């Protein structure tokens, strides 16, 4: 029997969620950071959406947020003209990096030694995190505010997007290698290291380019203006969301629209697959993050597949557990849920 998707809503933000990022897979699972216009980025457990902590310190809307691979550090970009680096275990602020205008994007290198920033001052900056007092290296060339900047090709190159162009830079020489022009505003960019794929969204298009040459691979058109898209790690699916509040899931190979979901009460600003591809997260103007299953009905995280003969009042434990999960923690999770949420409660729009 086909099952309907139950998205998990993560509340807590009080203004639109404009950016989100997952960490890599760590011994403690994987983590999710969300950037919000309320200035208070939050860290959550990636597979459950459970809130872990809020990074307090920015004095303006946070436009970009990222985690390093092992989720030990976080970086945020804000309207208060600073980027900040945080200890993602304790929540403490480690560094404040002053800029000359609103900062929109931040990205760590694989080894977490360098931080790339970009924003309204149209400059790309590279900070050596081991020498925070030193001046950053600057790359100029963009003629409008930078919306997204990413390391690519094993941190040997940099990809950056402003309103109408996407540019590829060589890290060592700090010079532009290639650029792409668009006649519509570029809304988002995602880099997939395995396969060196770049996902770019503009207007209603979701385009895939080689991250090395910027040559186009393929593109799809969605029914509405898309603000963000993400490609599944195994490159079977992609998900996209935008101005019509819906999430769309496509088959990457055929371009066929597989599923679409209503649920958000405002435009979707960001969407990303988890590092294991089992779920994707969406952030919206409505101030919430939602987690969606890639395979609907699969037991994973907080979703539990109940077979018809199973008693729905069971004390259930998640089938997936990470190595560090202590026995007491599993018990705590089980005892918290006296009743599983059954479908006799009034329908909540998925």
């Amino acid at each position: 029997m086909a099952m309907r998707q139950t998205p998990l809503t993560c509340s807590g933000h009080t203004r639109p969620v404009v950016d989100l990022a997952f960490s890599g897979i760590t011994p403690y699972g994987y983590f999710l950071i969300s950037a919000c216009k309320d200035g208070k980025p939050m860290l959550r457990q990636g597979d459950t959406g459970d809130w872990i902590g809020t990074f307090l310190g920015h004095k303006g809307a946070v436009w970009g947020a990222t985690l390093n691979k092992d989720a030990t550090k976080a970086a945020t970009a804000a309207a208060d003209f600073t980027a900040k680096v945080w200890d993602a275990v304790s929540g403490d602020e480690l560094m404040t990096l002053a800029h000359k205008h609103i900062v929109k994007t931040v990205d760590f290198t694989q080894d977490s030694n360098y931080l790339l920033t970009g924003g309204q001052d149209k400059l790309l900056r590279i900070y050596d995190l081991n020498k925070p007092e030193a001046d950053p290296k600057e790359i100029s060339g963009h003629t409008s505010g930078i919306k997204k900047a990413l390391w690519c090709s094993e941190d040997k190159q940099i990809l950056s997007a402003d309103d109408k162009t996407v540019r590829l830079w060589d890290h060592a020489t700090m010079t532009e290698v290639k650029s792409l022009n668009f006649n519509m505003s570029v809304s988002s960019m995602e880099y997939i290291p395995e396969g060196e794929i770049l996902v770019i969204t503009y207007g209603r298009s979701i385009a895939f380019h080689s991250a090395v040459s910027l040559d186009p691979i393929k593109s799809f058109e969605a029914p509405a203006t898309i603000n963000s898209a993400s490609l599944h790690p195994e490159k079977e699916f992609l998900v996209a969301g935008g101005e019509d509040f819906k999430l769309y899931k496509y088959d990457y190979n055929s371009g066929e629209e597989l599923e679409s979901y209503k649920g958000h009460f405002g435009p979707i600003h960001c969407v990303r697959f988890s590092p294991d591809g089992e779920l994707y997260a969406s952030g919206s103007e409505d101030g919430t993050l939602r987690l969606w299953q890639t395979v609907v009905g699969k037991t994973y995280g907080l979703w539990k597949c109940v077979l018809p003969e199973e008693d729905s009042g069971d004390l259930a434990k998640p089938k997936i557990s990470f190595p560090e999960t202590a026995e007491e923690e599993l018990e705590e999770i089980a005892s918290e849920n006296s009743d599983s949420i059954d479908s006799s409660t009034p329908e909540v729009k998925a």
Partner: protein
Amino acid sequence: MQTPPTTTVPVLRLPRGPDGLSRGFAPDGRRAPLKPVVPEIPESQESRESQEQRARATLRERYLRSLLAMVGRQVSFTLHEGVHVTAHFGATDLDVANFYVSQLQTPIGVQAEALLRCSDIVSYTFKP
């Protein structure tokens, strides 16, 4: 409201939200750095704290069960400025910031579906 043609995927619980008290990053959380052993807190203080916590948990559970019991029932709400409305209770959101109701009887007519902000509600009552 339409009945769904298929069942929705069951969930164990909803994601936990911020506690509203602290910035989080619990010192006893999963990834806490190893710390030297903290001197033990006196026995009586510890048990009072855990008693309080147990009481909080019981009260919270009772409140959540009261919300579940309200589903589908006619509820009378007292709003600010002495306004009274009645409606069929549908659901509340995670933070109990909004009540989703239907057939809301207001002084200016009946609203088929509505969201009542909890900050606007002074009190509510219903008969199970």
